[in-house]
C-alpha cells in the first residue's frame, strides 16, 4: 500500500513485516544524515551514520514498534536536507517525533557490538555473589564510627535523639 509519506512494504502471510519497509530511500538518507550529525566519528569511536545501518535500525524498530510512525514523521522530506535544521525544527515543534528520532539513533548505536567493545561495556552481566565473605566495609571498619556515634533516631517519648541503650 502507499500513503502520502511513501510506500509501505507488503508482507507475505505469516512473515513478520520488516519495519525498514516503512522507510523509503529519502527517509533512510535523512536518517543517516541525522545519525552522522548527532554522533560523528571522533575520539576513537565510529560515526552513527556508519554503525546504524539496516541491521541496527531494524533491531531498534523491532524492539520498539511504537517508534515506526513517529520516526517516519521525523524523517519526512518536507523538513529539508540539513540534519541540524531538521532536529531544531522537530525539537521545537514536534518533540515526540524528535525524541523518537534521537532514540532510534542512540539505540541503534549503543546496541552495536563494536561500539560496546570500544566502551568496555560488556552489557548487564550476571555476577556471582560471595555473601559468606566478610564484606570489605567491615574489614575496613567503616561502620565502626557510625556505631560509635550511638543512636541518631528521634525518640517520640522525648522529642530528642534517643539515648544510648
Amino acid at each position, binding site marked *: 500500500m502507499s500513503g502520502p509519506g511513501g510506500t509501505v512494504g507488503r508482507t507475505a502471510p505469516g512473515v513478520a513485516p520488516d519495519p525498514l519497509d516503512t522507510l523509503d530511500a529519502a527517509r533512510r538518507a535523512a536518517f543517516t544524515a541525522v545519525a552522522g550529525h548527532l*554522533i560523528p566519528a571522533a575520539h576513537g569511536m565510529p560515526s552513527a551514520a556508519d554503525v546504524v545501518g539496516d541491521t541496527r535500525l531494524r533491531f531498534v524498530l523491532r524492539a520498539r514498534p511504537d517508534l515506526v510512525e513517529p520516526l517516519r514523521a521525523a524523517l519526512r522530506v518536507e523538513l529539508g536536507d540539513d540534519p541540524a535544521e531538521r532536529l531544531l525544527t522537530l525539537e521545537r515543534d514536534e518533540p515526540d517525533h524528535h525524541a523518537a528520532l534521537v532514540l532510534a539513533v542512540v*539505540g541503534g548505536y549503543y546496541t552495536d557490538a563494536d*561500539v560496546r567493545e570500544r566502551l568496555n561495556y560488556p552489557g*548487564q*552481566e550476571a555476577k556471582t555473589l560471595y555473601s559468606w565473605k566478610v564484606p570489605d566495609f567491615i574489614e575496613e571498619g567503616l*561502620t565502626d564510627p*557510625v556505631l560509635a556515634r550511638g543512636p541518631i533516631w528521634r525518640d517520640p517519648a522525648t522529642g530528642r535523639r534517643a539515648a544510648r541503650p
Partner: protein
Amino acid sequence: MATEPADVLIIGAGATGGVVALRLAEAGFRVVCLEQGDWHDRSEYRGAELDWELTMRKQWATSPNVRDQPQDYPIDETDGEISPLMYSAVGGSMLIFAGAWPRMLPSDFRVRSLDGIADDWPLTYEELRPYYERTDRQFGVSGMGGDPAYPQGGEDPPLPPLPLGAGGLKVARAHTKLGWHWWPEPNSILSVEYDGRHPCVQRGTCQQGCGEGAKASTDLTHWPKAIGLGARLVTGARVRRLETNDAGLVTGAIWRDREGAEHFESARVVILAANAIGTARLLLLSTSASHPDGLANSSGLVGKRLMMHPFANVGGLFDEDLESWQGQFGCSIESFEFYETDERRGFVRGAKWGLAPTFGPINAALPSRAGSLVWGPEHHLHVRAHLGRGANWGLFGEDLPDEANQVVLSPTLTDSSGIPAPELHYRVSENSRRLLDFHIEKASQSLLEAGAYKVEVDQLMRYSGWHLLGTARMGDDPKTSVVDRWNRSHDVPNLYVADGSCFVTSGGVNPTSSIAALALRAADHMVETRFNQQVPV
C-alpha cells in the same frame, strides 16, 4: 465461578494483596482475588537482553501512561507535578520496584506530636515492629542489623547484606570522614538462596522485572503458597464497582473480563489492595443513593491527602571506572543523617538517601535522571564520562498530607473497559521544595567528599511517583479518617483497605516494607476477630 460467597474478596494481587491472601488462606479463609493484570513469566523480562534500555522506555516503563497496555488504566495527570508509577500484574508494582526495604522510623508515626504539623498515626513503630520482622522473613530481606538510625532490639534482616559496589564503598568512606550516618541498605533482594529462590546476580535491571527471581514480588513469594492453600486468583478481572446492601455492608464486586463480559463476585468481606490511586478510584466509583460521594467516604477524605514523595537525584561523576551499571537497584547504601527535623533548616521532617546504579550506555547518552544531552564529537567524551563512572543518591523527601492533593474521577477519560479513569491533582509543597534543596546540597557534599569531580542534579524528577500513599487514611476518628487502626472502614464494617492508601503521613523512606507490615497486621487482626466480623446475611 464459585457459587458460595468468598470469605474474603481481595481487589489487587500486588504487595498487600499477596500478604493478606497468604495470611488469610493459612487461617482457613476461602480467599478470592480479582487482578486486572496477568501473571508474568520471568523469561519476559528484558534485563539480560540487548534491547533492555529500549524497552524500559516503553513496554517496561514504570508509568502506565507511557506503557499504555490494555491492562493498565490511564491517569489524567495534567494537573500533577509528579507522575504516578505502577504496574498491573500478579505481584503488582513490585515487579518494577527497586526492592529497597527500609522501615519507617519511630518519629514518622508522631509527626503532629513532634513537629506540630500533619497528624499522628494511631499506632507506633514498636507496635509495627513484629510485623516488619515477619514480612522481612516472608519476602527475604538482605541487610545488616545494628543500624543506629533505628531502635535496637528485635530481629536482624534474615539474610546478609548485598554488596556495596565500588561506588557505595567510596561514598561510605566519605561519610566516615564527614562523620555522617551511612549503612548498608536493606533490600528485598536475596543475597543468598532462600525459600527456593536464587540470589541476586547484580545485573542492575531490577526495575524492569528480575529475571532471576531474586527480587521479591508476591507472584513469587506469596501467591503460589496462597493458591496452594486454596486461594483463587482471577486475572484479567477489572473491578468496576463494589456493591452494598441495605444494611450498609459490602456484598461483593462487579468486574469485567478481558472480553468485556460483566460478572459479580460475592463476598463476606472485601479487602482493597489496589494502591492509593486504584483503591480511591474504586471507592469513588462505588456510589449509591446511600453514599453518593463514594463508598466509605462519610469523612469526605477518600482520594484526598495523596502523597508521592517528591524525589531528587544527585549524581556524582568519578574519574575511575566503577562499573556502576551493575548492582542491585535496590540501593547499596543509605543515609539517615538528615532525616529528623531540625527547624533551623527552614522546613520540617527530612529525607532518606539511597545510592543506586546508573544504567547503561543509552542512558548515558539520553539520561532519564540528572544529566544533559551532548551531540557532535564531544558526545563520545560525554558518554565515556557517564557510563559506569557515576554514583547516584536518590533523595526521598517526606511529603506532608494536603487535602488539595487528591485523586478524583475523570469526567472524560476512561480505561479500555470504559470505566472512568482517575484524575490527579498534585502540587509539591513549599516544605518539600526547601527540604529537597537542603538535601541536594548535602548529598552533593557527600559525593564531592567521595571524590566526584562533578555533581549533576535532577531537582524534582517528574517520573518519580513510585510511592502512592494516603488517599484513605487511617485514624481513630471517623470524621477525620477513612479506616480505623486495623485498616477497616469506619463506614462499612466488612470493608478493609490494605494498601498504602491507609498512610497517615508518608515518612521519608521507600514505603513497601511498611505497607506490607501494615497489611499483615490487618490480616492478623481479621483472623483474631473473625467470629465478631459483621458480614452480609
